[in-house]
């Protein structure tokens, strides 16, 4: 169930340069699961399209529940969000899309190991996923440098955590793939979110490991619900909706089996 409502900001903190963490109170939390996202609307009348932001953590213990969003300032909209403080209100629509667990429901047993791979601002959705999974979890997070690391404590308390940094200032020097190869990490399935080059690497990795990879894709959106056809990505098979090779990231994704999409 999707909800459009005015949510309240519960707290906001800066995690590291340009990256913020915001908890909001919203009825949408009740229906949310790891890997879904919400559309966040600007309070400026100049900016009418929503900003899609992944759900980083879900708290269903209260009613209305709470959602955590972790985001990087990328432009005017996220800049506006970063200035919000407790009690501020913002319109949201969600939860949207299909999360990480939908495609694997019933396929995960407690003795399995899931490998979660996050790159940069693709890391946040991995946290709720790590917390939700009922099997062993190994997370590999990639950052530019030790100065730009965030969510590491949270991820560590939700499973084993490896870190890669581009400049080697912390953990493995190189990419998440370098870290996985270097640490000889094995797993039964992979979940990943991050920049396209990383997702390509993940796809190749999964193929070489012979395990499925579920990756979260990104594209500019308008409706967020599958109606406008703004946010498609190329799919390997004819898609159900338009009978071409275009899956709608907002409605058919954002999580896809890596074998379904062309990267």
């Amino acid at each position, binding site marked *: 169930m999707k909800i459009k409502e005015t949510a309240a900001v519960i707290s906001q903190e800066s995690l590291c340069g340009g990256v913020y963490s915001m908890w909001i109170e919203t009825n949408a939390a009740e229906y949310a699961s790891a890997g879904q996202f919400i559309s966040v609307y600007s309070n400026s009348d100049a900016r009418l*399209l929503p900003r899609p932001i992944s759900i980083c953590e879900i708290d269903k213990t209260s009613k209305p529940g709470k959602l955590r969003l972790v985001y990087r300032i990328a432009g005017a909209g996220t800049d506006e969000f970063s200035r919000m403080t407790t009690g501020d209100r913002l319109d949201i629509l969600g939860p949207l899309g299909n999360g990480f667990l939908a495609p694997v429901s019933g396929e995960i047993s407690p003795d399995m190991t899931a490998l979660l791979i996050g790159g940069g601002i693709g890391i946040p959705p991995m946290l709720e996923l790590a917390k939700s999974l009922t099997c062993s979890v190994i997370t590999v997070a990639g950052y530019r440098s030790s100065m730009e690391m965030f969510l590491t404590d949270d991820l560590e308390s939700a499973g084993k955590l490896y870190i890669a940094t581009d400049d080697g200032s912390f953990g493995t020097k190189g990419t998440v793939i370098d870290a996985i190869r270097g640490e000889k990490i094995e797993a039964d399935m992979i979940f990943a979110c991050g920049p396209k080059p990383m997702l390509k690497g993940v796809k190749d990795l999964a193929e070489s490991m012979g395990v499925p990879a579920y990756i979260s894709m990104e594209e500019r959106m*308008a409706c*967020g619900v599958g*109606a406008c056809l703004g946010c498609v990505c190329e799919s390997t098979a004819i898609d159900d909706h338009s*009978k071409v090779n275009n899956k709608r990231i907002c*409605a058919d994704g954002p999580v896809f089996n890596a074998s379904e999409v062309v990267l």
Partner: protein
Amino acid sequence: MNTSVSIAGITLKNPVMTASGTFGSGIEYSEFVDLNKLGAVVTKGVSLTPWSGNPTPRVAETYGGMLNAIGLQNPGIDTFIERDLAFLSKYDTRIIVNVCGKTTGEYVEVVERLADTNADLLEINVSCPNVKEGAIAFGQDPKALGNITKEIKKKAKQPVIMKLSPNVTDIALMAKVCEDAGADAVSMINTITGMKIDVRRRRFVLANKTGGLSGPAIKPVAVRMVYQAASAVKIPIIGMGGIASAEDALEFIMAGATAVAVGAANFTDPYTTEKVIDGIGQYMTDNKVSDINELIGCVE
């Protein structure tokens, strides 16, 4: 209080419809909006065969509006009839099918395929700025517009609405050409061609370079065009472009539109259509208007 209006003999329970391409076939938004409340659902442009549309990014935000260059991605008429028209048949609302094509022949073939369906009206998109062939090429040349209108009218079983492009010097002339060629109605405006540049990266924001501008930003242009067209033709006009509130819708109606469509505003608030319908009712109550038809073209 009467809120129903009539277009070419087809009665709509109220004048509010969805703008083609912004509401799919209603499936996705039916989670938010009771489709039974709508005057009509106007479906996304459908062509003879599946079209895959343009590369991404396809959408961009602009000040008070947005650009889109979807490029008419659609599953083609077969799937559309089977799935989308079947879905809409469950609802008590009018169905307006938006038709696109690359050649006159393609348009006509789609129109013929729709003959024995539950489509109530056909809206012919000769104004999409985002595809290279067909579409806007017909909509910017009076002669081509007249010709395609005539060809479609020859074969169409349902009344035909020609959807006009605002990217023209004289919208009244284009409306008149349609009327003279037998169109039952005209709708306007499709999007205005625009461009956005990412100055940091020095690149076009849209893969297609240009896209169609819609949203509140363009409303004054759309209202003006409806007014000019209404002064030139007798056939009904469906007005759209930036409608986000009942007041917006009433501007179009007072300028001469018999019905209106809500487009980009659905993306900002999926409940917009219902709010517009309720707001028009409220306006009529507050201002003691017993029949919405009294308001059509009433501006002075």
